[in-house]
């Protein structure tokens, strides 16, 4: 006979929740980077503003946005629960640890990378999301010019630097997170795991290079 423990309170249940919410957040990155890439058309932000306006006002996108925040909050809550348990599992640490002998530094630093991402995210939302929300709820969405806002924000070199740190953290976070999520969901196969790892690697690099090039291109006025 098995005494079933509540799925979400079990270690594997929490891990699977981390993996699923993580993959969901990764799917958002695809949408985000696609919409933002409209600035590379370099038409003074006409295409980008149209896309941003659609994203800010479309009811279906609004609904998914609620899901996105729920996913983010769950990802953070499970991360905190798991981290606390992990700290409790080793009350006395080692004097000497040779971590690089058996694992990648970024796979051991998901908590720090995630915390950096969260700090970046708060700053990022304060820069763009809040203003857009105010514009939408006061009925000024048509006049809201997100492209001009981008130009203003990215005229400061230290904000550009902060964004690069944020995107760098993202790169290493999903470099481990992407393939880790599939392993957690039980997908480990001699044929498919190397493919998943390659997709994760190129996904992280391409998405993060695109994101990083945006503030840099605006700061250096390659995009006007």
């Amino acid at each position, binding site marked *: 006979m098995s005494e079933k423990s509540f799925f979400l309170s079990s*270690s594997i249940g929490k891990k699977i929740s981390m993996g699923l919410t993580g993959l969901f957040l990764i799917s958002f990155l695809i949408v985000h980077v696609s919409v933002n890439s409209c600035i590379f058309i370099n038409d003074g932000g006409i295409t980008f503003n149209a896309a941003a306006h659609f994203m800010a006002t479309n009811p279906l996108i609004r609904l998914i946005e609620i899901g996105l925040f729920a996913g983010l909050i769950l990802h953070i809550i499970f991360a905190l629960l798991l981290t606390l348990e992990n700290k409790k*599992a080793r009350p006395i640490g080692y004097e000497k*640890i040779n971590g690089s002998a058996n694992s990648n530094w970024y796979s051991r630093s998901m908590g720090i990378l995630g915390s950096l991402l969260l700090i970046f995210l708060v700053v990022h939302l304060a820069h763009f999301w809040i203003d857009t929300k105010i514009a939408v709820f006061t009925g000024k969405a048509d006049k809201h010019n997100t492209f001009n806002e981008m130009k203003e924000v990215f005229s400061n070199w230290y904000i550009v630097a902060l964004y690069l740190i944020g995107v760098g953290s993202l790169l290493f976070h999903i470099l481990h997170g992407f393939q880790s999520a599939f*392993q957690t969901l039980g997908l480990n196969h001699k044929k498919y795991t190397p493919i998943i790892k390659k997709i994760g690697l190129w996904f992280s690099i391409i998405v993060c290079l695109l994101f990083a090039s945006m503030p840099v291109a605006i700061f250096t006025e390659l995009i006007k």
Partner: protein
Amino acid sequence: MSQGNMNLTLKVWKQKNKNEKGRFETFDAKGISPDMSFLEMFDVVNEHLISSGKEPIAFDHDCREGICGMCSMYINGRPHGPKQGVTTCQLHMRSFKDGDTIVVEPWRSAAFPVIKDLAVDRSSFDRIMASGGFVSINTGNAKDANNILIPKYDADDAFNAAACIGCGACVAACKNSSAMLFVSAKVSQLALLPQGKIEKRDRVLNMVKQMDEEGFGNCTNTGACEAECPKSISLENIARMNREYLKASLT
């Protein structure tokens, strides 16, 4: 002392009992042959300590041929020392250089309390094994060996999982002190075979529940366990256990 013998400094964790707070102590290991195993080096050090009226260093060991899973030293920041695919008893002093300082610690985990010095209590592993229960086997006359056909790949995977000696290096190596590699190997070796399939649902639920109750940490897929495992148990087993657990939880 013959030519080529080594002199080493050991920085070893000393702890009187489970409740006392431990500390590091430094010992000299003189005239150590490079052909000695790491445990034989400890034997030499202990002989010197005993003959000079001091207390020897307590450490776990049994078969000294890499199959029992008793030896459990965290050497210079790695379980079972710097070599891959070996236990501490299979580690030789030629892996070190004359004059080296070697830091030796016990496995660190809330689920593996220190008994004395370098010896830890791993009965939490036994309780996980016990929670896995039994396999149904018809008694009576011995059956023909090939009565139940098993695909070669399944038999190989099951055998590789069964190579786990339960030494606890996976827990010691994991930054979260997770026992997922051990438990997944034990779940896999039976779930892969027809004889173990009958109880596989209850087995995975009960073993994971016991693992969580023992206070092990959670897996973050760093892969440190697989890299440090003296029997090279694969991460595929963890994925298999996750699948089994998910299936068992949903049904």
